[in-house]
């Protein structure tokens, strides 16, 4: 029997066995009625005990959202979303501001355990030495627990849920919220402003190097809910933080909406490293179910010589629409974007970045690797722009696509704008295919077809994996192999 077939008939579906996170946790939920109106927005705000300025901010966003239209320019295709069929708030009933883990519903703790996310600090300490990670766990609409808070607060670092930040540090939230992604930014961001329920808040004071990795783990559990989380990270002058988010969802036949907003602010000489391992349920082989991941992520290098770096490994979601961006406002600031997007089955990806050079001597670097298999379609869409005052702006972009099989697609859509003659932008792009010959060569040396594919893919994404925090690089590598399982017969 010939071992390697490149026909799609041989591409095994992404099925339950391969999506390991498809389980549902049975927890009693507090659900808002389906649909969206001003009362729902007020209800969400009231549930969280928010100050009145926040309620007004939300209502303002909601009114603006009603006048907006869904963007149509992305190379993705899906039926219209009925925004009145969604629950905008879902919280586990027992989760009334737990003071310790013992007050959290054991079923939820169990769910995180199944996902391999240890929430008990002693377990984490016992597990991996030298690699402590503080976790904020978000279950549907609310944060259930944040670990290592005390130790972080000794360093002056604030790491808590967005709801708690609004209660405990309203002045900080008010100063920065919506300053990177304005309320009117885009359809999904504006929707998020109106109905966001929770997310993470990070504040690193001046001169502090955050003593551990910070991580948020997002889990959508309830059906017919949307997850709208909001993350805000502020790095004061001369500080440093590395932050990682992970996401999974149960396997369901209906599509679910995830519309998050992430805002990063880096002041003078500060550095933020933001990594994402996104593994939302991608839908089945025929494209049924899966998460619509419509996310707005933007970092503002507000200070001189500040640096923001986005690293993402995207293997999940039925549709991905996200462009983590950097506004290089401060002179000498630097933006980086490293991305691996893997698509299989019927997944659609339209993703990329924006590097907006405003300040002098600003630099940016984009390394994007797309891997398409099955009948999936992947588009890299990226903007690099230099404004009039951006003297000596520099950008290097490299985007490579790798195709597995002959029914998938890869597209590259770069936008380059320069209003300053001293700017130098470089763009490199390649598209290649794992060839039968490469596979045969590897197999002749003793590797199985799957091992050979994994080896070639790992070689392809190596530059990006190296950017991930060590603990997660291994995890991401495994994830990529699982996502591509069955893409070679």
């Amino acid at each position, binding site marked *: 029997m*010939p071992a390697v077939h490149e026909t799609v008939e041989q591409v095994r579906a992404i099925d339950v066995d391969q999506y390991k996170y498809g389980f549902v946790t049975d927890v009693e939920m507090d659900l808002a009625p389906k649909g969206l109106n001003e009362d729902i927005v007020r209800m969400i705000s009231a549930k969280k005990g928010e100050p009145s300025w926040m309620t007004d901010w939300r209502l303002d966003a909601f009114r603006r959202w009603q006048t907006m239209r869904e963007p149509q320019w992305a190379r993705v295709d899906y039926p219209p979303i009925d925004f009145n069929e969604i629950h905008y708030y879902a919280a586990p009933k027992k989760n009334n501001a737990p003071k310790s883990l013992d007050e959290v519903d054991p079923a939820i703790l169990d769910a995180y355990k199944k996902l391999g996310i240890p929430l008990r600090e002693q377990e984490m300490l016992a597990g991996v030495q030298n690699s402590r990670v503080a976790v904020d766990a978000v279950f549907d609409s609310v944060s259930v627990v944040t670990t290592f808070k005390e130790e972080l607060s000794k360093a002056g670092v604030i790491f808590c849920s967005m709801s708690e930040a609004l209660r405990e540090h309203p002045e900080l939230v008010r100063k920065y919220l919506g300053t990177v992604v304005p309320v009117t930014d885009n359809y999904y961001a504006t929707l998020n402003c109106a109905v966001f329920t929770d997310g993470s808040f990070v504040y690193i004071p001046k001169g502090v190097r955050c003593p551990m990795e910070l991580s948020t783990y997002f889990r959508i559990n309830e059906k017919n809910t949307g997850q709208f989380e909001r993350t805000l990270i502020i790095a004061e002058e001369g500080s440093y933080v590395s932050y990682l988010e992970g996401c999974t969802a149960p396997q369901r036949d209906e599509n679910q909406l995830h519309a998050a907003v992430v805002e990063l602010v880096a002041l003078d000489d500060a550095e933020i490293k933001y990594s994402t391992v996104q593994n939302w349920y991608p839908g089945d082989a025929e494209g049924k179910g899966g998460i619509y991941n419509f996310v707005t992520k933007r970092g503002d290098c507000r200070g001189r010589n500040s640096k923001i770096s986005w690293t993402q490994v995207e293997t999940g979601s039925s549709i991905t629409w996200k462009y983590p961006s950097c506004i290089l406002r401060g002179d000498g600031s630097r933006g980086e974007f490293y991305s691996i997007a893997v698509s299989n089955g019927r997944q659609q990806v339209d993703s990329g970045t924006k590097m907006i050079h405003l300040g002098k001597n600003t630099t940016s670097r984009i390394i994007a690797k797309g891997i398409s298999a099955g009948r999936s379609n992947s588009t890299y869409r990226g903007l690099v722009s230099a404004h009039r005052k951006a003297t000596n702006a520099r950008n290097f972009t490299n985007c490579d696509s790798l195709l597995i099989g002959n029914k998938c697609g890869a597209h590259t859509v770069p936008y380059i704008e320069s209003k300053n003659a001293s700017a130098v932008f470089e763009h490199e792009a390649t598209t290649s295919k794992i060839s039968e010959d490469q596979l*045969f*060569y590897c*197999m*002749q*040396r*003793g590797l*199985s077809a799957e091992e050979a594919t994994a080896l070639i893919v*790992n*070689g392809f994404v190596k530059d990006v994996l190296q950017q991930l925090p060590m603990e997660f690089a291994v995890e991401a590598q495994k994830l990529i192999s699982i996502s591509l399982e069955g893409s070679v017969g």
Partner: protein
Amino acid sequence: MLEIRNLHVKIEDKKILDGLTLTVNDGEVAAIMGPNGSGKSTLSYVIAGKEDYEVLDGEILLDGENVLEMDPDARAAAGLFLAFQYPLEIPGVATMSFLKAAMGAQRKARGEEELAVGEFLKRVRGAADKLGIPQDMLKRGLNVGFSGGEKKRMEILQMALLEPRFCILDETDSGLDIDALKVVSDGVNALRDGKRSFLVITHYQRLLNYIVPDSVHVMAHGKVVKSGGKELALELEANGYADYKTLAA
């Protein structure tokens, strides 16, 4: 021992091998010569298991076991090695990592324990030194940006490390200058141990001055049309393939 019996092979609608029969004994170095298009490279690919070819009839037995029923990786684990005429590039995969993956996979398939890292490095460095392969080349992506000669050396390095029972060298001499030819031939000769067998495919007699064969087989139109000792190669060098082309037709 490798026995090929009455092998008929086609690719798409074209018949390439047409009743080829050949036996290579343990420890034997057999040379296959023949004009372009006689099916030499096809033979090497069919033995190694490349899938584009359709075997219509015949069998290939390695020590009595029919390899046609095995996937390419199983054939490799059983001890078949093909040194490619055009070795493939694997970007981003360091040569050292590739060697570790290949050796690991074969040892696992044979139920052997994985080599300790120290032992693995010792073996690789030792074999690389003998072939004049500098250490820093082992850190680069496999065959990426290597010259033709370097790629061929890398094939012999893999052959030395994987310790196959049966080696096929597909036009290993093509693209090599005389110095590289010597290094590569020395590498091959060092692996001749009286048990390991070799099938050396070449257009030219020149290579056989360095790798001296026990037998020489002439291929034309998809089958072996004449077999003899090493002197047959010299005869071909003098007279060309013209006689054989008509003989088989």
